[in-house]
């Protein structure tokens, strides 16, 4: 038999299945060059199989969980900012609308009418009497409910 190929010797050193294993082993018995190559491969694989010393800190898992909670808090902050922005966006025209009832701008009156329609729709879905003040309460309750739902979702895996 010819000298063993690198592929054969690697397979033998790694303990993998080899079709011509017996033939190769017979050759190795009489060929010191191939035995040497096999020996080097075995040395190599012994080193390769050594696991590197793990350098992660003992509280690694806690650190990861801390980072996830922190990012959850950040997500909650974004939600709070988002909610605050919505309140401002709704609240400002409402203030203007209130003033408008005393006779200010047309734009403010239009804003008020649109908002009033939205709140009435919410209120009607909620079986509230079609009354502006009660509509406002219903809308606020809905907003708080959605906010809490969003916060809960932010703390779960996405």
């Amino acid at each position: 038999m010819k000298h063993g190929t690198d592929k054969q010797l690697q397979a033998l050193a790694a303990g993998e299945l080899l079709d011509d294993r017996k033939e190769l082993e017979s050759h190795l018995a009489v060929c010191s060059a191939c035995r040497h190559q096999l020996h080097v491969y075995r040395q190599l694989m012994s080193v390769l199989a050594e696991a590197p010393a793990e350098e992660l800190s003992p509280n690694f898992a806690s650190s990861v969980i801390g980072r996830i909670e922190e990012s959850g808090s950040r997500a909650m902050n974004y939600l709070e900012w988002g909610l605050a922005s919505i309140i401002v966006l709704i609240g400002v025209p409402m203030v203007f609308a209130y003033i408008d009832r005393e006779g200010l701008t047309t734009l403010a009156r239009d804003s008020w009418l649109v908002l009033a329609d939205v709140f009435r729709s919410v209120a009607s879905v909620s079986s509230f009497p079609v009354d502006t003040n009660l509509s406002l309460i219903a809308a606020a309750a809905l907003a708080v409910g959605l906010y809490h739902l969003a916060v809960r979702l932010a703390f779960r895996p996405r």
Partner: protein
Amino acid sequence: MDNDRTQIQRILGGDQRAFEALINDHRKLVFHVVARIIPNRSDREEICQDVFVKVYQNLSKFQFESKLSTWIARIAYNTSLSYLEKKRLMLYEDLKTEEDDAEYPMAADAWHEEEGVDEKLMEREIRGVLETEITRLPVHYRTVLTLYHVDELSYEEIGSVMNMPQGTVKSYLFRARRMLKESLLTQYREEELRV
């Protein structure tokens, strides 16, 4: 796979301890992948943390198309490569510093008592040389070697982690071993390697 499913369901249900267990089950695997790719020791812990944060964030998307460990190893591999790209490091450069060369412990326990001191020294030296040579291999070769020899993943699993065909995995593994062997043979005489 069933264990994976149960563990994931518990984590998705908000069980923090289950996630902690997942981290502890897979931290070695993640570290092996990250350590083979990332040259700076000081960066590795943070990258390993990034890996597990991503695991947590994407856990609901895991479709059980592979073992959970394979999926996590893939995240570790991709996160490490992204880090290298961000740092604009060349993938095929010599990534290790002298300090890093000592990171893989010598198998002192494996030495036989009856062996002579010279033989032990030679074996230690050869192991040191091999470790240095491993760090000089291309990053894909190093990763394949680690996943196959240390973490004992199958060719199929390594292919899944590194997004490459099994044939490529086998080819990388073969070439990497041959390169290391040639390197040893050029640096040592035959009798020096007979330890």
